[in-house]
């Protein structure tokens, strides 16, 4: 085990978290690295400001090659998760900013991180335990209730390609199946307790600035709404505004039935809202179901993602069932998006492509019993669950026609019904530096109906206020990409930047926070240059895996077939959007970063990564 200072050059070029993680991923892997092999580095990276007063600065990134998106089961693509809670700050207080975990243990182990010290300990007694039990046992054994833990559950141990890390009751590092990367290393958990001070440049002013900004944020209506009802609020907004993914509401868009999953339906079960460290919003429920089939279900969430992934996408409109499934996934250490594989399987069953001889039981929409059993079967790789646990590689074990029931972007599987009505949302998903990610770069405020004048004031140019319009949307996506890259690299929360409101913190506030914390006075163009560098490294990495070009930024053909003429007519317009988008990034017209851009950004040494 080796410890070293994070080089100042890395800080200046990439800040932290996602920025430094991606640079490390680029330099420590190559095109042959097996995501589930010993050479795939598991990189835990704190934001530059994680753990300090800021804008939801409890967040950090876990990065590795993802086992869910490669061209074969033994290859990978960019995997990256952003997660909140309290364990990131604790790691900062223990004196560490990044952990680069390489190799593979022959027996289950866990890391114990204390001030400036890391031990590897035997985790045989934890292997097989769910994520909640694991955290409880480790805390008890540590003798210190303030110990924070992030761990994997049975899904990660069983190398399920939709496995995630969990810390606390529901903070998940998910979306890229990285829980299985830890499982392959037999790394069960990372336990942290830190009591060191962190020096900042202007402590008194920082605390005053933080207090003043927190008060300002807490007075805003969107903060109050999110802080009272959480992300489930999106269910109603998406439904009535017509900007939800068709997949959310089942096959024929059963929007009325989705009423059962509105945010208000959660209130009777809510014990209150909880927060990541220092956050002004407190956006998630603590819940308790007192009676009925799911009596005793107690946890945090469900988020909108669970309401869809374990709810609407399966035509399961029972809020109590979805809440139970949310907790089940969290305990198993499995992404709630695993429901997408269940949705896919039900479609195949209904179409007659697979039958009971493959699945072991009938698969029906809204069948809670089957959903609950199959969710566990996936985590434990039992029966048909073993097929679904392979994510997109389940196609290797299904009839060839099954491929037509999924869409693919840069190797990542999506629903075949992902067509949305919001142009900027579609473009951001197609071009996202994390394959097919729906909100890596999402310009959330596009749905607020801001008038042209307000958009011009924010972006400095005309952007069409119509969500279906095209003018200015490439710029909008680019602008948000860069802002979010800085947000992530600092360890701030996406919800506390220009995502749900044009009035949320952004570059000016980030500048001030950086000045008060580090003493640096970075201009906005300098911050945008750092963001461009982070995003371009990610683009180069995609290129290494053969998915970093224009052909990879296009809509899956199956989307166009399923969505019909509206989507088909937009094909040409999206090519024009890509033209503009590439110009903004100073990439060539095939979407490849140019030598001049690499020179300007000081990453010429990474030029060999790019695709041809």
């Amino acid at each position, binding site marked *: 085990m080796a410890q070293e200072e994070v080089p100042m050059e890395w800080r200046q070029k990439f800040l932290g978290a996602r920025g430094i993680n991606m640079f490390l991923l680029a330099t420590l892997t190559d095109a042959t690295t097996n995501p589930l092999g010993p050479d795939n580095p598991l990189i835990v990276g704190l934001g530059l400001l994680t753990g300090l007063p800021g804008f939801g600065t409890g967040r950090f990134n876990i990065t590795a090659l993802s086992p869910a998106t490669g061209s074969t089961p033994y290859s990978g693509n960019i995997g990256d998760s952003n997660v909140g809670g309290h364990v990131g700050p604790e790691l900062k207080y223990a004196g560490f900013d990044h952990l680069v975990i390489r190799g593979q243990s022959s027996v289950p182990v866990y890391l114990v991180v204390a001030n400036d010290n890391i031990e590897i300990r035997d985790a045989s007694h934890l292997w097989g335990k769910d994520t909640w039990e694991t955290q409880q046992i480790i805390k008890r054994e540590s003798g210190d209730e303030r110990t924070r833990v992030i761990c994997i559950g049975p899904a990660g141990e069983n190398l399920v390609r939709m496995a995630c890390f969990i810390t606390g009751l529901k903070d998940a590092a998910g979306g890229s199946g990285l829980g299985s990367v830890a499982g392959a290393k037999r790394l069960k958990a990372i336990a942290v307790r830190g009591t060191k001070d962190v020096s900042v440049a202007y402590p008194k002013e920082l605390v005053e600035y933080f207090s003043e900004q927190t008060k300002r944020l807490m007075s805003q209506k969107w903060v109050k709404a999110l802080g009272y*009802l959480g992300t489930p609020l999106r269910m109603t907004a998406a439904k009535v505004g017509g900007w939800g993914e068709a997949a959310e509401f089942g096959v024929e868009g059963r929007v009325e039935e989705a009423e059962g999953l509105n945010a208000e339906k959660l209130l009777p079960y809510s014990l209150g809202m909880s927060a990541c460290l220092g956050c002004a919003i407190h956006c998630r429920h603590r819940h308790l179901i007192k009676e009925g089939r799911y009596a005793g279900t107690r946890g945090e969430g469900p988020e909108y993602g669970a309401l869809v992934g374990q709810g609407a996408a399966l035509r399961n409109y029972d809020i109590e069932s979805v809440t139970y499934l949310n907790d089940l996934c969290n305990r198993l250490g499995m992404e709630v998006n695993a429901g997408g594989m269940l949705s896919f399987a039900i479609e195949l069953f209904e179409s007659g492509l697979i039958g009971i001889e493959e699945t072991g039981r009938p698969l029906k929409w809204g069948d809670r019993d089957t959903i609950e059993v199959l969710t566990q079967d996936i985590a434990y790789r039992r029966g048909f669950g073993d097929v679904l646990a392979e994510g997109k590689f389940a196609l290797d074990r299904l009839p060839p026609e099954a491929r037509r029931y999924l869409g693919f972007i840069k190797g990542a599987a999506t629903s075949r019904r992902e067509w949305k009505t919001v142009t900027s949302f579609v473009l951001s998903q197609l071009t996202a530096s994390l394959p097919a990610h729906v909100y890596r770069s999402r310009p959330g405020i596009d749905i607020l109906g801001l008038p042209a004048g307000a958009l011009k004031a924010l972006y400095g140019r005309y952007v069409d206020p119509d969500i279906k319009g095209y003018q200015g949307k490439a710029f909008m996506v680019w602008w948000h990409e860069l802002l979010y890259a800085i947000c992530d690299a600092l360890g701030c929360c996406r919800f506390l930047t220009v995502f749900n*409101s044009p009035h949320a913190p952004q570059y000016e506030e980030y500048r001030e926070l950086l000045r008060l914390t580090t003493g640096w006075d970075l201009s906005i163009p300098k911050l945008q240059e750092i963001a461009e560098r982070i995003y371009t490294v990610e683009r180069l990495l995609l290129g290494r895996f053969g998915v970093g070009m224009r052909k990879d930024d296009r809509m899956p053909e199956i989307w166009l077939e399923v969505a019909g003429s509206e989507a088909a007519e937009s094909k040409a317009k999206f090519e024009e959007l890509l033209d503009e988008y590439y110009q903004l990034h100073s990439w060539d017209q095939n979407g490849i970063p140019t030598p001049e851009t690499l020179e300007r950004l000081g990453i010429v040494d990474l030029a060999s990564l790019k695709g041809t």
Partner: protein
Amino acid sequence: MAITIKVFGMLRSILGEASLVLDPPPATVHQLLNELSVRYGERVREELLDEGGNLDYAYGIFVAGEKLNNLSAKIEDGVEVVIASIIAGGDHSY
């Protein structure tokens, strides 16, 4: 013909109701706000308007899937109006 208002988000906790009927129906969003304020107090106007007196971006007022973006927008007879808090995330993906 009366209109039905369905209310979601923070406004529901302010009104204390999930849905209501207005008869005679208001003809514009401005009239709708006036009517709701008469019934439920000025808190409604404070909640739905920003400091400049325009519709606050934190809310959407929808009729048949279309968002009404200003106070002078017309409301047809007999429609269902939905007032909901708007947020853009979380999300779902495969």
